[in-house]
């Protein structure tokens, strides 16, 4: 795999000293590679561990991930090609680049960039929980420095090949990684139910066991709103995560993204069965307080040792690919929207790529420090917050792709309030859940904090836009044209 990462720099060779080449692989990826790249974003090693863990603990509620990954694709089909076209036309590398061009506001772009970086860092760190869980179950846990050593080695490899090859590295390794993951999922979801007496039995045992532990195998009415708002909010947020934007902009055409919207649901199917591993663990009688160990323990108990080893390898590699894409995305954001905007003295695209490569390294090392030095729980808290935060950039980016009626200052103030409100709600729940009970008169509605925050965000944006537009407050110069969003620019000449 390491070899593949380095080899990637030679594949579809481009000038890696340009940020478009390093950070977006020259926007050259076709349907096949984009499918793996975006799919790799969608379900990471963390997903592999966290979704079954949630299902194991709460039952049906954990399956919010299924409607979430169903509706994400229509949104992607409709919205993201617009972002791709305008970005291609104006050589935008990040969503914040687009915001800057559209609203003529480096402040708004900075808001989007900082939100993206803040949300991405703990996500990278969390990828490691996958590796850690696997190592712990294999008895290689160790203690102190020895516990962290395999992680450090894995991350050094990641850092080296990302630095060397940019987005091409995770794209190539994603193909290997997902092939391993698909084999694991297919085998596990056939072999384990046979071992445990069939799906009917698994659901029956899970329903009975969950009922005794405040869970439920069928969603109870009081969780309807929490379930739906979490799915809806997560779907909108997913597409605006920097690594999803990077993966999308790396495609060679808007139609590649649309084709993928029709093909990517295969990943949702895999995710559904991964979620079912949580029920299989219940049926197999797995008992653990640390729910991140649910899947590794299930594999050890029900599968032959050699195949469990294969599956663990798949999970470990599955952590590195998204981590690399995330690091590249964060590096693109920092370089384009913070460094170039505020610190770069001498101009030049070579300098940009150089900085991006260095920042990519810093991000990866930062994530490593995060996981080694800070208790895991904090990474999970930040990850919860990250989704809420990213969702607050929906008005700026998604609305901005359709209209410029919203005022840039209204968007900024709305974003600020959304960020504060979302964070406050999560804090009120001690960061343990992103579900916040909204009290309306005598009734209580459970809902995703990100959705409550974005409702307030949107109301502020609309009201203030009315006010600012009536005051004729300058809304800056739009650097994009209407046709930039709808017409596909010519194919890349260097194909």
């Amino acid at each position: 795999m390491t070899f593949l990462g380095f080899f990637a720099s030679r594949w579809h060779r481009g000038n890696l000293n340009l940020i478009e080449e390093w950070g977006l692989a020259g926007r050259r990826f076709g349907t096949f590679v984009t499918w793996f790249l975006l799919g790799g974003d969608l379900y990471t090693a963390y997903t592999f561990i966290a979704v079954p863990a949630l299902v194991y603990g709460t039952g049906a509620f954990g399956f919010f991930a299924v409607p979430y990954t169903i509706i994400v694709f229509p949104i992607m089909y409709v919205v993201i090609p617009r972002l791709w076209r305008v970005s291609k036309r104006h050589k935008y590398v990040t969503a914040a680049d687009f915001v800057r061009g559209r609203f003529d506001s480096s402040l708004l772009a900075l808001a989007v960039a900082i939100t993206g970086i803040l949300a991405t860092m703990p996500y990278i760190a969390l990828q490691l929980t996958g590796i850690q869980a696997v190592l712990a179950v294999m008895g290689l846990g160790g203690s102190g420095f020895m516990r962290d050593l395999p992680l450090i080695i894995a991350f050094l490899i990641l850092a080296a090949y990302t630095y060397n090859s940019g987005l091409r590295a995770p794209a190539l390794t994603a193909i290997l990684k997902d092939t391993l993951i698909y084999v694991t999922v297919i085998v596990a979801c056939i072999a384990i139910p046979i071992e445990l007496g069939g799906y009917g039995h698994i659901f029956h045992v899970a329903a009975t066991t969950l009922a005794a532990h405040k869970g439920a195998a069928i969603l109870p009415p009081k969780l309807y709103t929490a379930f739906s708002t979490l799915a809806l909010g997560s779907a909108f947020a997913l597409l605006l995560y920097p690594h999803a934007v990077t993966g999308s902009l790396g495609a060679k055409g808007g139609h590649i993204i649309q084709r993928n919207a029709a093909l990517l649901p295969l990943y949702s199917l895999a995710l559904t069965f991964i979620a079912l591993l949580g029920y299989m663990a219940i049926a197999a009688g797995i008992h653990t307080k640390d729910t991140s160990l649910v899947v590794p323990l299930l594999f050890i108990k029900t599968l032959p040792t050699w195949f469990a080893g294969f599956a663990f390898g798949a999970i470990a590699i599955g952590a590195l690919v998204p981590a690399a894409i995330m690091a590249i995305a964060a590096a693109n954001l920092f370089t384009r929207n913070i460094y170039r905007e505020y610190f770069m003295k001498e101009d030049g695209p070579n300098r940009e790529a150089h900085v991006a490569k260095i920042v990519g390294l810093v991000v990866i090392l930062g994530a490593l420090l995060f996981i080694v030095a800070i208790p895991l729980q904090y990474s999970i808290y930040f990850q919860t917050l990250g989704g809420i935060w990213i969702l607050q950039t929906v008005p700026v980016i998604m609305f901005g792709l359709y209209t410029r009626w919203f005022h840039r200052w209204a968007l900024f103030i709305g974003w600020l309030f959304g960020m504060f409100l979302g964070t406050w709600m999560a804090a009120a729940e001690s960061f343990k859940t992103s579900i916040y009970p909204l009290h309306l008169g005598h009734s209580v509605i459970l809902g995703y904090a990100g959705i409550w925050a974005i409702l307030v965000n949107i109301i502020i944006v609309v009201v203030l836009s009315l006010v600012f537009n009536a005051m004729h407050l300058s809304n800056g110069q739009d650097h994009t044209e209407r046709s930039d969003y709808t017409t596909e620019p010519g194919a890349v000449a260097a194909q």
Partner: protein
Amino acid sequence: MQKGNRSGWYWLFIIPFIATLWPPFYASYRPTLGGFPFMYWYLILWIFLVAILSGIIYFIDNR
């Protein structure tokens, strides 16, 4: 690629939102299918339906 005025078809994408984000439609154990409670096979069915829908709209877009 010519887009024309075909984006009216995009409104069809509302259907999966309603079908999957309204739990009263599917939050029940029965009828089961192959051991899967209704909620689970219904959602799995929608994974296929959304893929088919996107595929159809893609062909309309690129006709």
